[in-house]
C-alpha cells in the first residue's frame, strides 16, 4: 500500500506561471513533510519542509501548503523558471525512522 501518493506523473507549465505539485498521504499521524528535487543523473536535493503544526512554509519562490484534514500537501513554485524542470518528490517521516517517498512528478517548464 502506497502511504504517500503523487497522482500526477508529469506537469507542464509555461515560464513565469505558477506550478502546483500535489501529494496525498494516508496516515494522519505523519507530522513532518519534505519536498525534494531531482535532476537526471543526480541525487535528490532537499527543497523545503513543513511540520504538522504549520499549514504553510515559504522559501523564496517555493511555498509548501499542508491540509491536515485532507491529508494533502502541495508545493507551489511562483514564478516557474526553465531551471525548475526536474522530478519533484514529496516525502514524509513514517514509523520506525523511515523517510517515505511518493512516486514523483516530472515538471517541465517551457520558455
Amino acid at each position: 500500500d502506497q502511504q504517500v501518493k503523487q497522482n500526477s506523473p508529469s506537469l507542464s507549465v509555461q515560464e513565469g506561471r505558477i506550478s502546483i505539485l500535489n501529494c496525498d498521504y494516508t496516515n494522519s499521524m505523519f507530522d513532518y513533510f519534505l519536498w525534494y528535487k531531482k535532476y537526471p543523473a543526480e541525487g535528490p536535493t532537499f527543497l523545503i519542509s513543513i511540520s504538522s503544526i504549520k499549514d504553510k512554509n515559504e522559501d523564496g519562490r517555493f511555498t509548501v501548503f499542508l491540509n491536515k484534514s485532507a491529508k494533502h500537501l502541495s508545493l507551489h513554485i511562483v514564478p516557474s523558471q526553465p531551471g525548475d524542470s526536474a522530478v519533484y518528490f514529496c516525502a514524509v517521516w513514517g514509523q520506525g525512522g523511515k523517510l517515505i517517498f511518493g512516486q514523483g512528478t516530472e515538471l517541465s517548464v517551457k520558455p
Partner: protein
Amino acid sequence: DVKVTQSSRYLVKRTGEKVFLECVQDMDHENMFWYRQDPGLGLRLIYFSYDVKMKEKGDIPEGYSVSREKKERFSLILESASTNQTSMYLCASSPDSYTGELFFGEGSRLTVL
C-alpha cells in the same frame, strides 16, 4: 558542505554476480540509507542504519544485504544479482531522525544483464 560519495556512477554486471555498492559520508552523520529509484515507483527504502554495525530492513530488503563497519561507510551488497535489480541506487545520510533532511549521493546506475 555535506558530501555523500558513491563509489561507482555506472556499473554493468551479469546475472548471478555479487555486487558491492559503496557509500561514504564526511559529516559524521549517525544515519545512513539505501534507496532504489525506478520510474513510476519513486524512491523505495532498501535498508537503513542508525549506528555502526546496526541495520534495519526497509520496505524492499529482499535480495540485498548491507554492512556498516565504520560510521562513515555504508555498503549495499547484492549477493546474486538479478535483472530485476537493474535500477538507480541512491545512498543518503542524515544527522537526525524524524525531522531532518536526508543528504543524497549522486547515485549508482546498475544494469544487470
